[in-house]
């Protein structure tokens, strides 16, 4: 069965419980105490060790009608694309599609070449830094001397590899709901069978439209560019760009035929020139 996330941003209250639950379950290191000044967003972006990221979009203006304002919150996550750029790019086969139809990086196979990082049209995958035995950048548990050994074998101890959301592969195997969806207090993050989620999402857009709100789905249907539908899709109330999502993502491998053809033309032309030059004594 294909499972996925439906993230309904109209229900998000920006509590970041998803971020915390994800970090705790997956034993991911903290992002440090950075204050960005960008609304309440001090996480900034998804990374190799940040697999949920709550975006805060503040929209305000004062006109004749008085103050008009809107505060959008959205929990971003790996999209688990139907045609995943990272999976196609991976030269070791570390990135696979598992039995839940999720895109999963096997941390013990990945050798850290970094090609998936530049092949994700959504900028999700990133490298995990090498494990830091002093525990300065890592979670509290790694600061405890007795637990360091244990944490070297945990995922974050596998530094030097690529990291992203696993759609809680381990929890799903046990029949549990992924940590972020479990922790979400408003059901903004809904987990389940993708087809069922899509039907629910379409109904939700209808309801919202009836109430006079604007809403659109991002990735519930084929998103174009060869990427296909997303297993983790979103309900948005503004253009995707406002949430730092690409309006027109493209699957990188679709450019390969043109690339190889252009290289072949160049090779052929230069080889003929070379043959003509070297033919004459």
């Amino acid at each position, binding site marked *: 069965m294909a499972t996925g996330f439906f993230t309904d941003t109209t229900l998000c209250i920006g509590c970041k419980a998803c971020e915390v639950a994800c970090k705790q379950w997956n034993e991911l290191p903290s992002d440090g105490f950075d204050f960005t000044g960008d609304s309440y967003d001090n996480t900034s972006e998804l990374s190799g060790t940040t697999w949920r990221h709550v975006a805060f979009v503040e929209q*305000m203006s004062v006109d004749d009608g008085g103050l008009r304002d809107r505060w959008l919150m959205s929990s971003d996550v790996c999209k688990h694309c139907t045609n995943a750029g990272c999976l196609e790019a991976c030269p070791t086969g570390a990135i696979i599609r598992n039995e839940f139809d999720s895109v999963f990086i096997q941390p013990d196979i990945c050798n850290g070449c970094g090609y998936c*990082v530049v092949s994700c049209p959504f900028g999700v995958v990133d490298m995990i830094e090498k494990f830091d035995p002093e525990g300065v950048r890592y979670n509290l548990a790694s600061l405890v001397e007795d637990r360091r050994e244990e944490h070297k074998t945990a995922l974050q101890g596998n530094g030097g590899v690529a990291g992203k959301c696993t759609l809680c592969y381990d929890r799903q195997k046990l029949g549990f709901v992924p940590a972020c969806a479990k922790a979400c207090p408003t059901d903004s993050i809904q987990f389940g069978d993708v087809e069922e989620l899509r039907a629910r999402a379409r109904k939700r857009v209808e309801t919202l439209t009836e109430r006079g709100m604007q809403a659109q789905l991002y990735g519930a249907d084929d998103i174009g560019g060869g990427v296909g539908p997303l297993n983790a899709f979103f309900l948005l109330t503004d253009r995707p760009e406002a949430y730092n999502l690409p309006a027109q993502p493209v699957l990188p491998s679709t450019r390969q035929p043109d690339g190889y053809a252009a290289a072949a033309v*160049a090779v052929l032309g230069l080889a003929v020139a*070379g043959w003509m030059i070297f033919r004459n004594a």
Partner: protein
Amino acid sequence: MRELTEPPGREEGAPTPTYYERPLLKPPHWGWSVTTYLFTGGIMGGLGLIQLLADRHDEDERKLRRTARITSFLLAAANPALLISHLGRPERFLNMLRIMKFKSPMSLGVWGLVFYSGAAGGNVVRELANSGVVPRWLRFFAPGILTPAQALLGAFTAGYTGVLLSATANPFWSSGKRHIPAASVASGLSSACALSTLLSVLEGNGRVTHKIERLELVAATAELAILAHFERHAGNYGTPFFTGARGKRMRTYTIQAGILAPMALNLLGMLPLPKPVDATRSVIASVLTLVGGYIFRESLIEAGKLSARDPRAAFVQPT
């Protein structure tokens, strides 16, 4: 997707909103070792073609072929070290060889490098057997088919690095889906010609350099034409590469010093110059081409990093 009316604070037709000017994509974490590999891999591929072209029966060409083969084998032996050193987990390099994946230029490239090393190694054995350094019967392991095989595999290794960059989500790289692979081939060949010229002059095989220099002239002209067309084609996606401090560096070192100056010097070589002057001219032209070739690869990688951090470039990605 349905059209939405603009939210509060944004006028109709206002520029695309960004998320606090934060970039959407992640930059490549590749450094000097990947840049160097793109450069030496291109030379290695170009030498594959040169050893095929110089497969004739006059003494100068035979010397050139021998130099090209030995150099390409040495590069093929050194390149894996560069590739392994950039990995987050170098000890897992062999995981690259657990599968062969046609959809992944990185995977195909690694296999291309493996097979190229085999062909180049065979051809070196052939050279050494011919000159009696190793027993003649070892030629049995180095059949003649390895000569065109090395040329074909060389063409692949010179070209795939371009596809490796252009078949990513990086806005600048992907805007050159045809230009970067073609320019990689042309730059690889011109650098290979320059290195061959340099080594030939150093071994006192100066007469053959005129042929290589003519080939270099063709490759450099092709590279120049491709880059000029790329600049117009890439538009805004190309700004990290063609403009600013990075663009200035690329123009100075790659286009002016690395392409135009060697072209002029190589044209000058068609005049009857005194031998020492001609040798000096060849050496200067070759060194300039090599420097330009390296800066070209460096500029590709660094412009890719800048492009990935552009908050708007990746919203609408090049097809």
